[in-house]
């Protein structure tokens, strides 16, 4: 098993932090090999940014995400920047208010609209949309159960533990269904 996961959006959305939590969950809570890398612009907020995780059940020779199997798109910039790299058969979780145009994805890419930001608002802080996304990713892929992802959230994102706990649970409870069509 080898998977390349990219959590992308704009600086300030906690994308790198989310990828670190995910790497902790997969590599330490579970027993996979993982490498986490990141890209961000020098501005603190705004600008394209992403956190990447390569996970495998054997030694990872190449640590960089080239063609993600799974893309979490928390902003339209993520789709614009990475959409073309998605191969047939790969999966996208797209935030249903921050992403508006899916036309870059081929019909053979499975796109799930997900109310990540809206769920974070309901939980009480838009800033935890990244944690909602981790819950949704865990449930969708089956790579992590709720206890495993929650444990990593608690150890790697210890600020506001109650908000983050509710965010990951709400994300895990989201029922994602593939989006029809590619027009915005």
């Amino acid at each position, binding site marked *: 098993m080898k998977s390349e996961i990219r959590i992308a959006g704009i600086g300030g959305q906690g994308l790198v932090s989310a990828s670190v939590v995910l*790497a902790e969950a997969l590599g330490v809570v579970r027993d996979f090999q*993982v490498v986490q*890398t990141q890209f961000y612009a020098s501005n603190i907020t705004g600008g394209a940014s992403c956190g990447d995780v390569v996970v495998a059940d054997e030694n990872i020779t190449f640590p*960089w995400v080239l063609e993600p199997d799974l893309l979490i798109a928390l902003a339209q910039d993520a789709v614009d920047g990475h959409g073309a790299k998605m191969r047939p058969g790969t999966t996208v979780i797209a935030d249903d208010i921050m992403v508006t145009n899916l036309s870059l994805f081929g019909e053979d890419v499975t796109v799930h609209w997900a109310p990540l930001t809206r769920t974070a608002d309901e939980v009480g802080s838009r800033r935890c949309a990244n944690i909602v996304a981790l819950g949704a990713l865990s449930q969708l892929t089956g790579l992590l159960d709720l206890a495993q992802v929650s444990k990593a959230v608690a150890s790697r994102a210890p600020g506001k533990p109650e908000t983050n706990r509710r965010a990951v649970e709400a994300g895990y409870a989201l029922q994602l269904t593939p989006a029809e069509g590619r027009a915005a």
Partner: protein
Amino acid sequence: MTRQLLFGNHAFCEGAIAAGVRFYAGYPITPATEIAEFMSRRMFEVDGTYIQMEDELASLNAVMGASVTGVKSVTASAGPGMALIQNELGQAVVAEIPAVVINVGRAGPGIGNATRSGQMEVMQARYGPNGECPAVAISPATVEEAFWLTIKAVNLSETLRTVVIVLAEGLLGLQRAVVDLPDYSTIEQTERPRPTMPPSEYSGAYIANELTDVPPVADFGTGYKTILNTVGIQPRGGGDGSTQGGRLENQDFTIRRLHEKILSRKDEVIMTERHQTEDAEVVYIAFGTQAQSAYLAMQQARAKSVKAGMLRLITIWPFPEDAVRECCAKARLVVVPEMNLGQVRMLVVNALADTEAKVVGVNHVDSTYILPEEILAKTEEFLP
């Protein structure tokens, strides 16, 4: 063993601590900032000392000051910070003060591009300081290796009484990977040679008779009269200028000795990793994180029945020219992928000057990593 998700920049710190480092002075600079930040906590946890200095020059000066008391000491920097410290770096080398400098490479000249990565200080590591200054530089490829090679760097700096540069990259410093960290009490630590005679018979820290000598040095504050020669290569030896100091043609002898004490210990200093080079007609030579692309390219070339091999340079300085020659003995084509415009390629060309091998590069200066496909395309373009 402790399994943890370890940050590249923290791996350097943990390696340093495992090797016995108890002094850190630094000035934060992207992409090395987390080293200073993490050390500011870790040094206190291990009863060490952390000082945030006013700039990079002061940092390496503080490191020298700490090291002469016998405390293993480290600083880290990047880009323009590495440019600034070249004077101090040469001074530590000529005064033979053990120190480790970690360079987490960014891209571009001057201030460059802080958040982007590069391998652009290969030549700086060797030729940055003035005055034919020797270099020891080693380059880790993974987070786990960042830990182990920092230990190696500290140990080499002690046994050789010189500065060892950990030549890393932003791509590595800002990467996290799962690493099993050992119990630090099991880590082998080496110490600089110290005098065994009583203080009254000690004639200073530069008493050498052979070019290969690493003279014993007493720690400041231990009752020995030790002057670490800030003037560098002026006559050294017995304080009275007698032949006590051995050789008196000091400039020639000392400059040659500074190099020879390293070169005569190649077995200890030079590390490489070879894959399928025995029959290789195409050899990929790479270092740091880009070696991973070269390794994949080698596997993909072999799958296409190209006799490809791969040499990873772990030690960059002294340059492993013997390993290059051995691995390229049957090579018709050598491809050097690196995140600069051909600094290692130049060294490979030099090492293979007497052979027929064609040496070409795959060069990125946009901070994106080199893809195996690019190395293969270059192979197909040039394979005779």
